[in-house]
């Protein structure tokens, strides 16, 4: 972890009216690291993600590659931060290839066609996520798990050094949850700084290089999965009794009952 952080956040707060949703968050994202954010509903995770993607006004300092985030034009920013929102929304029955090609939009000029390196990036994202066989199909005809992979392929196609994924495993079957987590881990291990909101603590423990825990707008823990996901902290933050089981893939929290 000697590499310099690509995204530095200091004292970040977001207000909605008079309510503080995100309260003085300080966080560094490092290249090559899959950081998983966990926290109960309403903790401000989505708001924080949106603020990091500059979709919300916030106070505090966000520094991207050494420059303040506000100094970037929307397109420059979009080339550096790929953001995958919740829910994998597709409003039109566009082809999978066309949807994934949208990830290249920050790189191309208004009426310019895709260049060779854009096409290569799209092909790479299509094959990496395994959605290439459906490249021609309308995205609205795919199942939820398939759509999630297409949405992720779109975010990967940007080839941004930072990937923010908000609940990428939401409403996916167990297999697709694993597939998506492996793709995120792969993106991180290829040098990206990946921050993903995940609700499943076992998935977080298994795949994360680092876990940050949010509660009521604040970061309450930040560190290795085994250090953050302890029974005491899970009880305090989630009000759930949990035990830690040592398995072949490392210590995994098992949830027992609500407190």
């Amino acid at each position: 972890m000697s590499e310099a952080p690509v995204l530095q956040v200091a004292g970040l707060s977001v207000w909605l009216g008079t309510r503080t949703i995100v309260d003085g968050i300080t966080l560094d994202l490092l290249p090559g690291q899959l950081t998983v954010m966990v926290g109960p509903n309403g903790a401000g995770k989505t708001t924080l993600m949106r603020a990091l993607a500059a979709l919300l006004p916030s106070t505090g300092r966000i520094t991207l590659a050494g420059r303040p985030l506000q100094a970037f034009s929307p397109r420059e920013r979009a080339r550096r931060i790929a953001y995958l929102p919740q829910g994998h929304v597709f409003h039109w029955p566009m082809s999978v290839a066309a949807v994934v090609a949208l990830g290249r939009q920050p790189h191309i000029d208004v009426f310019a066609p895709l260049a060779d390196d854009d096409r290569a990036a799209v092909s790479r994202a299509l094959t990496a996520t395994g959605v290439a066989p459906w490249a021609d199909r309308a995205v609205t005809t795919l199942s939820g798990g398939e759509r999630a992979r297409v949405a992720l392929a779109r975010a990967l196609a940007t080839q941004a050094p930072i990937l923010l994924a908000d609940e990428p495993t939401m409403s996916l079957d167990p297999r697709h949850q694993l597939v998506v987590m492996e793709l995120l881990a792969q993106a991180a291990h290829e040098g990206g700084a990946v921050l993903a909101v995940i609700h499943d603590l076992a998935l977080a423990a298994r795949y994360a290089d680092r876990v940050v825990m949010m509660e009521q707008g604040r970061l309450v823990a930040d560190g290795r999965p085994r250090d953050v996901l302890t029974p005491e902290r899970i009880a305090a933050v989630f009000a759930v009794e949990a035990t830690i089981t040592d398995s072949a893939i490392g210590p995994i929290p098992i949830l027992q009952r609500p407190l």
Partner: protein
Amino acid sequence: MWPRLVQNAQDWNRECSSRETFESNCFPGRTFRIQNFHMRFPCPARGEGTDRSEWHCCASIDLGPRRMSKPHRGWRLEAALVALIAALALLSLMIGSAGLSPATAIKGLIDGTGPAGIIVRDIRLPRTLLALLIGATLGLSGAALQGLLRNPLAEPALFGAPQAASAGASFMIAYGLAGATSFAVPLAGIAGALISIGGLVAIAGRRASLTVTLLAGLALASFAGALTALILNFAPNPYAALEITFWLLGSLEDRSSAHVLMALPFFVASWIVLALNLRAYRALALGEDAAASLGVDIDRTRTMVVIGTALGVGAAVAVAGSIGFIGLVAPHLVRRAVGSDPARVCLPAALMGAVLLMAADIAVRIVPTPPSAIAIELKVGVVTALIGVPFFLAMIFSERRLLEGSPS
């Protein structure tokens, strides 16, 4: 340079012992080219050894340049529509109370002398040009609004835009504040359209749910209708009221080149403003947050589409009265040929809009009018509404599932 496609044979549980079985088993219905195929080799980086089941089939795939924005299918549709527009333009110059042969019409258009020259140049050419320009503007406005709101049912007329533009323009006409060909009429129309579309987009808000959008449009259209009724109600004289009533029906009859020149700058401005946001329409297919994260300035896009649509619809209403549903029908018809990419739809939707309005304007000249009718001709706005509303109902019927499932 093409990325490698790695597929685990065991994971797929399919036979990949040769290139042919790999292609047919792993990619049924494949349309891309598989460039290099390497069969079953161990990948030491993945810690694979001699166990054959762990080996991978490897290939490069070439998706080709055209596949990223599929379905493209060239520019054949546009070419066909342009040819159709040319044919309809000729037909429009020929047909009227005095029928002309194609040769006479073209000759009249070119030299402009004699009765044929006057009929073609002074009467039928402005009308034909206005049908083309207004149709194209309405088709493009519909496609742009649909792109902005991610909704195939968006259409200026459903948002009260022509109604509000009519209210603004009729106020100008009723009180004789301006001559019918003065710039004040389109400006009043544009102001009306700006208020209604701006209001609708503001009410629909971030999520732009179908239910909220349509209900707000209904309310705005009714309010604009009430304002127009109020103006008619207090019209200074019955002739002004009658004039406004017929003008509201929407017609291209008896328009002069002054009307064309008055509206043209607004149409061109509308096209430019709407076309500048093509990328945004495409990105918005993923929702506002994803589009914003791709570098689209959502607020600016929204403002520009509102202004662009208001410019086009306001000017169209000012010269031709209320003509609805072109913006709904035109994008829908071309989507079958060019696919759903909301940016790709715009140009053919504009051309299709021109085709529809030109055809409707020719139709009103062919349909015989009952001798007792006050109006000399069937009004083109009546025709587009008579065809457009059943079309709209059919679309609602086919989108029922979507509408019922839409959050309010």
